[in-house]
């Protein structure tokens, strides 16, 4: 769950003095979208994105002469003039949840990862987040299946499910309880089992009083 495990390291960083065309070239050649800008000590001072760089360039509808003047100006302009100084960061000890909340709330594509001294140690992008959750949800994990169990409303459903599966030596890796919402009439439990013997899983759950249902995209009418 810690960012340290899922971040991209080392992060490519640039100095504030780097000119805008050089930074643009670097982003394009490396297919990155975000560059942390750091001072001599490696401390984060700003973030530059491909969008920042694009908007720094003159519009193509301007006259040729104006464009030429602007480009000549850009050749001398350091990234520090356009970088974002109000950036958001996470630390290696932050969790995936911290990153998700920040990425979602601030609508940014990546977060520099900094240590306690503000030094950049990595970068964590939305792509890193999707990869991390892919692993956590067991997506593409060969040899598993997901079962949907109806919550029977009796106490301790997760305890009862875990106990009966363990008693039957049925390996499972994920047990997720989703509360009742507008979409599903009952609260639902998702269970990822690492077996093909789904009959055995069904029978074990039945023994514990649970009903296995076929997942459906329309709300149940029961």
């Amino acid at each position, binding site marked *: 769950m810690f960012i340290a495990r899922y971040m991209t390291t080392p992060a490519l960083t640039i100095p504030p003095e780097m000119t805008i065309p050089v930074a643009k070239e670097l982003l394009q050649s490396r297919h990155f979208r975000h560059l942390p800008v750091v001072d001599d000590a490696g401390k984060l001072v700003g973030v530059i994105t491909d969008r920042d760089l694009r908007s720094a360039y003159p519009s193509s509808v301007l006259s040729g002469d104006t464009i030429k003047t602007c480009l000549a100006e850009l050749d001398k302009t350091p990234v520090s003039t356009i970088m974002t100084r109000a950036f958001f960061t996470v630390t290696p000890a932050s969790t995936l949840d911290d990153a998700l909340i920040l990425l979602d709330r601030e609508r940014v594509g990546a977060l520099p990862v900094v240590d306690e001294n503000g030094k950049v140690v990595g970068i964590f992008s939305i792509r890193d987040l999707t990869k991390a959750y892919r692993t956590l949800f067991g997506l593409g994990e060969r*040899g598993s*299946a997901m079962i949907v169990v109806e919550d029977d409303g009796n106490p301790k459903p997760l305890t009862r499910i875990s106990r009966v599966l363990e008693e039957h*030596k049925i390996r499972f890796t994920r047990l997720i309880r989703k509360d009742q919402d507008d979409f599903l009439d009952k609260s639902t439990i998702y269970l990822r089992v690492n077996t*093909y013997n789904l009959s055995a899983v069904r029978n074990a759950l039945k023994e514990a009083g649970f009903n296995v249902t076929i*997942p459906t995209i329309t709300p149940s009418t029961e």
Partner: protein
Amino acid sequence: MPSFAPLAIITDPLCHRHDTGGNDHPEAPARLVAIKERLDQSQLAPIITTAQPRPAERQWLTTIHSDEYLYRFEETTLSGKSYLDHQDNQLCFESYEAALRAAGAGLTAIDLLEGSQTSRAFCCARPPGHHAERSLALGFCFLNNAAIAARYWQQAHHRRKVMIIDWDAHHGNGIQAAFEEDPEVFYLSIHEHPTWSFPGTGWQEETGLGPGKGATCNLPLPPGSDDAAVKKILLEKVEPTIDFFEPETIIICAGFDGHAQDDMSGLCYTTDLYRHLGDCAARWADRYCQGRVLSLLEGGYHLSSLAASVEAYLTGLVTLEP
């Protein structure tokens, strides 16, 4: 009274002796018994000839599996252990020999099909095969019967373009893995969506790799899908794909666990769908393969639905157009 094409069924007593340990293990010898009893009583009985398979020779096994894995599988059976790689894959002393027959059934059937004795063959054998990978037993499967048959057909009978159509409720990960980079073996699978279903593979976005790009087609269905859903994709997706690939041979991975009565998947097919699938297979084989089509039993665990569905499928497969 309809008229039927001859049908060869390849099966072996050893396939019954692959003991998965009882305890309600779904992949049990009773599956073959149920099918045999049903077929013996059916209108197909007079047109069926049965043949016994030869054990698959090592040279064909190694087109798909590693030597290390084959030794490990054989040793596991001989050592008295009860499973290979995962507790799902229960086995007994005779399981390796049984698996050689199940893989050999495809080879024997192909020789019959190529020898013009028959154009329809069904391997009523177990253990099943489509989950087995190069060096991994998975989902009750040890040797990948369909994949081995595909290589045999290409190399022993010089049929280049092989189409494997797999409508078992589960994705045949082992077949896809074997041929993902091969443009000459097309793998098409209709299965329950991998988010819900074992083994969690077979995403629609996967269409093959490198030179095999475009020769894999996964058609996942949401849980609860019925006959109509399958008929729709047969018409809209499968037919054009076959017409595009123009196979020289067709292998059907016939799994019957998508039946509504079968609790090993969330699919809700009726027995009638299997008749339709048999009609389709016959039509495709007649169109491109001079009628030759090989069908291999994969899953199907609810005994009476399994037996009825096999009969329905085979009836479609051999019924001659008036």
